[in-house]
């Protein structure tokens, strides 16, 4: 019980208070402490990636063993994981490793490493593809929400129409002060609403942090109480 509950609560409380105090101390010793804690976070994060790999391998191995629907994709995931790890370890991350340059003379210190190549020419285009879907999803979401079913929805529709037209050259062509109206909408009513939400959010963040530091909130440790 002490190891599972009390000790994590004590650690959370101690570091919570320490980090609050650190924020108010400008002395270099305080910054050194802060940087040290950041280093610890990086080290711990690096080790947790081993658990991530273990989770991925276990999940997909189980899928392949049980021949669940689409188990072939799991096989592709595991093969890709293996190949990426292999070329990363042997080939270096940013520039080709010495070992790879000896093995394949075509690789020069200035050339892109195979791992970087997979990132630039495989991962980045795939990410961009998914990102580009956003434009179509935005159109479909806008189509659904801009139906004038109620007074609120009509207001939303009108505001959206004004902002959309005012943001393109056509708006200025129709009425020269259109962009200024849009600026006013974004700067005042929109900003006021955003700040209202943000004040609540900030107070929520402080309250949650204090609950964790004081040990009132314990659900993140698992279980209810």
């Amino acid at each position: 019980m002490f190891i599972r509950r009390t000790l994590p609560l004590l650690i959370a409380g101690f570091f919570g208070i320490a980090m609050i105090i650190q924020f108010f101390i400008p002395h270099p010793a305080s910054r050194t402490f802060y940087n040290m804690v950041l280093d610890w976070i990086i080290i711990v994060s690096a080790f947790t990636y081993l658990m991530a790999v273990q989770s991925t391998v276990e999940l997909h191995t189980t899928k392949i063993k049980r021949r669940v629907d689409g188990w072939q994709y799991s096989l592709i995931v595991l093969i890709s994981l293996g190949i990426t790890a292999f070329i990363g370890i042997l080939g270096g991350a940013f520039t080709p490793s010495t070992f790879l340059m000896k093995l394949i003379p075509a690789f020069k210190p200035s050339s892109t490493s195979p791992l970087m190549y997979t990132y630039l020419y495989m991962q980045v285009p795939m990410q961009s593809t998914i990102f580009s879907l956003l434009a179509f999803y935005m159109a479909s979401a806008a189509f659904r929400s801009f139906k004038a079913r109620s007074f609120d929805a009509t207001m939303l529709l009108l505001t959206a129409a004004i902002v959309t037209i005012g943001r393109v050259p056509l708006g200025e062509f129709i009425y020269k002060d259109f962009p200024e109206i849009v600026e006013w909408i974004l700067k005042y009513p929109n900003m006021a609403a955003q700040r209202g939400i943000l004040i609540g959010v900030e107070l929520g963040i402080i309250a949650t942090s204090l609950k964790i530091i004081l040990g009132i909130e314990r659900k993140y440790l698992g279980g209810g109480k």
Partner: protein
Amino acid sequence: MKITFFLIFMSVFLFAQDNQGSVPTDSTVISELSFIESFIVSDMGSDDGTALRVKWIFADHTKIKNHIRLYREIESDTARELLCDITTSTNEYIDKNLCREESYRYSLVTLDSVGAEMPGIISTDYIKPKANYFKTNKIILLLMILIYTSVIVILVETVKKGKVLFVRKISGLDTLDEAVGRATEMGRPVLYVPGSSTMSDIATIASLNILGPVAKKIAEYDTRLIVPNRDPIVMTVAKEVVKESYSEAGRPDAYTDNDVFFLTDSQFGYAAAISGIMTREKPATNLLLGMFWAESLIIAEAGNTTGAIQIAGTDAVTQLPFFITSCDYTIIGEELYAASAYLSREPLLMGTLKAQDYFKGMIIFFICIYLIFLIISTIFGGDVSFLNKILEIIKFIFKS
């Protein structure tokens, strides 16, 4: 007891400051140049000992006919370094990125029309920048934290004594039961996405706090729960939260370790994988709670097309419109942080929830007061010094 200790500790820390740290040591020179009245160098204060403030006061602007330059000398190196040209519109220069082990001296040099130095250079004594132990400019912030903590403590104690506090209805959270029930009836899983951020984001912690009661409910209903993660630390915590909740519900055997898993740390890879899970597994309920960025709409729209009931919650203001558009219920901003208390109805957590509301009320009150006083002051042409003083005080508090 812990709370009282925290308050006492913070108070002692606040008032037992090394005052010498915040009192700047300075070097003042009464100028021999007729147009400069004084030339002062002082420590910045509230810093890490890497800056000095150089100030000069002009006796008579009209006498300045030539260029004046500000130079710096380091005691260990006599070379003079030009800092800036002085104009009549400035009277201060903050010299940053200094080394606190070194001593510095500043000089004002007048140049003639051809750029040659004229006699009558004025220099300060050598002065060392000093590292301070407290940011005096943040004192209001510290006081606010102490007041806020006190309000929480008072309300927690009040609730402990048995007082029932009213909490307004939050539709998104009330629907959680219904959403889990729907999944059970349909025999389909519940998908819980704890956001795209790391454990250092408070929104993620708030999301994991909600995951506990949700997982317990799901365990009681004997429904499958899928929790895909983007961060390995979040995954580890989520596994622990779900496992404990299943145990609490008396169903440890129903917990499947492979249902809480790591996907990828790539933002759009994560969005694509979740969209894939939504399409293949067809969850009856999608819970998207935590911190989201541009991937929010991709995930929410994919869920919308599968016909699942969707409850989303985030404190990212820019993503809220997307969730409102694509999800059935949206938990907006602070409601995400209130969810844990709202769902569990634990007295201690309810106290903190109330403290949040009271403090928000106080901020709204000050904003209204500021607005009213500003209007009155504008009506009277800004001449009412009493009102201006109050406005300045409120502005100072909020700026701090």
